[in-house]
């Protein structure tokens, strides 16, 4: 099972949108796919109409006292299951801090599922904390959405430095531009200023598009309810890049 996490220290940059759409595309390709909604806000769970509730809460789950299989929920996308969010995840940092080897804990939760899924997508909360460090340890790849600006590129580089310094098993780190508004000069300039062939930034950008925003209304990934839209096509291209990169 390969593990991909959508991560950014900031919120509202398109992590959940990327997670749900890429997970749906993976399932449509025949990969047995799991999406873990780690964000206590539960946006991914909401989009899939799954109640953001985990029996026993985050504490039991992280401490290995829950049967994780019993917590999974099938989604409306065939082949895609969800480990839902729970509001108690807001205390996950504390729970991890109390546990031994805190940065290994999330990987341990996923371990019993490794034979059942080809891909796990982790939708992470916006922070840099023990939760994110544990995600970094568990992930084969970090997928980092960036809204085009000079500062976000700098933050992305800082993330790479942090992972290099702190994480034992370094995941592949790939950024992609998200919510790109081609009418804005700054967006255009930032995206176009990148040297060709930079391997840590995906070729595909996700546009700021109404149909992507409508996911909250439709309560389904854009690749499901508007598969021919600009946004859906962009996610399909991003998935193709990611799939090749991860040899999925």
């Amino acid at each position, binding site marked *: 099972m390969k593990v991909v996490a959508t991560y950014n220290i900031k919120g509202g940059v398109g992590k959940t949108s990327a997670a749900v759409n890429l997970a749906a595309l993976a399932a449509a*390709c025949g990969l047995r796919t799991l999406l873990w909604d780690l964000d206590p806000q539960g946006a991914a769970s909401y989009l899939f109409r799954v*109640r953001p509730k985990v029996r026993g809460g985050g504490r039991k789950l992280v401490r290995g006292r829950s*049967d994780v299989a*019993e917590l999974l929920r099938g989604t409306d996308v065939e082949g895609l299951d969800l480990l839902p969010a729970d509001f108690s995840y807001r205390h996950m940092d504390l729970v991890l801090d109390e546990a031994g080897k805190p940065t290994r804990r999330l990987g341990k939760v996923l371990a019993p599922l490794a034979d059942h899924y080809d891909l796990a997508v982790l939708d992470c909360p916006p922070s840099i904390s023990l939760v994110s460090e544990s995600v970094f340890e568990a992930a084969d790849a970090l997928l980092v959405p960036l809204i085009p600006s000079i500062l976000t590129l700098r933050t992305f580089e800082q993330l790479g430095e942090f992972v290099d310094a702190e994480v034992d098993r370094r995941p592949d780190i790939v950024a992609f531009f998200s919510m790109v508004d081609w009418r804005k000069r700054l967006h255009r300039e930032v995206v176009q200023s990148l040297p060709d062939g930079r391997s840590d930034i995906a070729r595909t950008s996700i546009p700021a598009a109404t149909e992507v925003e409508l996911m909250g209304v439709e*309560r389904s990934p854009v690749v499901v309810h508007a598969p021919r839209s600009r946004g859906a096509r962009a996610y399909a291209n991003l998935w193709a890049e990611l799939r090749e990169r991860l040899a999925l």
Partner: protein
Amino acid sequence: MPLDVPSHSLALPDGVDPQALVSFLGDRFDVVVEPVTSVSYTVVDTADRRLRGAGADLTVDGGRSGPTLVLREQVGAAPLSADAGRRKRWLIGDLPEGALRDRLAPIVEMRALLPLARVQADVQALSVRNRDAKTVVRLRLATHAALVTGADPVPLSPRLEVTGVLGYPKPLARLLGVLSTEVGLVDAPGSMADEAIAASGGDPEGIRTKVRVALRPDQRTDKAALAVLRDLAGMVEANLPGTLDDLDTEFLHDLRVAVRRSRSVLRELAGAFPPDELKVQRDALKWVQTATGPTRDLDVQLLDWDHLLAEVPAARHGALTPVRTLLDRHRAAALRALRRDLRSAAYRDAWRSYRGFLRGGLGPARDRPDAKRPIVEVAGRRVRKVYARMVDMGSAIDEASPAAALHDLRKRGKELRYLLELFGALWPSDVVKPMVRTLKGLQDVLGTHQDREVQADHLRALAGELAGQAGGPDALLALGVLVDQLDAEQRAARAGFAERFGAFAARDQRKLVTGTFRS
């Protein structure tokens, strides 16, 4: 940790109108009903139904972009698909590279995927939703018909496939309860693929390699032997068309195994048959075996080709192309000869005569000393004797023994194995199974030893032909590497002989054989 999603295939009883069922469900549940779509597809599997055995369904679906192979395995997972191309059969190498091919390869191995039935279906997808408008049960209502060439479509039983959604067991249980108690739906007796194959005149279980004859220990030996031989003759006939059409290598392999087993029965239970007639039939079967041998030998050579190539430095692979070309050419010639023989009037007459022999009428039992004896006694005596003979032969083999000594032992081993496979059910399985296991262990090394000898001899014999061809000198050098590899594998097999034979001929094993298979 099970994550399987429960799935039920329910048959609609006579008189239940599919659309009335949809209305009924709509009244009782929050159901989203998709429009009916008409689809046609072809059920695809190997002749021996390997995919069925692995719990997988493979179809060729028509579509705008051309025929597509679709593999459905795990309930709840999206199917895998790949371009099918326009073919009458698919070997693994014919499939496009990708997930579907990777998944099928270990199941299908060298067998061809064949179209087994054509189906037309009207399918309607439905989903039951909960209060959050989330799908909690998936349904698929379908009416099918098997499309049979030159005949009207054969209607198949309408079905409702009900699939749960992980984490939502209660809505599924409630729906199934309603369907069972209020509509009278019951589990469908078999899969739709099985039903379609049967309606098309095929056997849903596919071509068998195991004999399925219920024997009684006290059954007359001649009757028991004839029952087994008739079953084996059916296997020869079932594999003949695929052999002649050269669909895959296993039709010929299975045909030859059935013939060899038949010869073995005639030899080991010879006392149950009239000697003159027996000789005629044994000669006829031997002729079939001889006529099919060269093609099979080349099949073994070619099936092992990739394995052999892996041991040769990659830089030399190109040099071996003329060798491969020559082998392919020899195989094509051998197949032509095989076809000529098995399509000949002589074969047809011989087979008709053999079938007549199997119908009985073997003459007075006084000329056949074992005819009336219980099969458990006669077959048991043969197991004991063949085993004892093998122990003697194997014990005499040492490092100086010629390869022929191992080959002779292997031939005896086949006799014993067939006796145990065909008549083993007459004795306790806790004796027969371990015996077959140690015998198989021994036969594996003897088989490798013999196969490598034949393959190496065959390759050496190509040298003359290769020398005069373009690229011949390079090919000869590379051929030497291949032959060395085969020789090394033969030596390794021989080195493993003592241990395997030791297990087979162990004192405990000998005692068990003497005690179990006594007259």
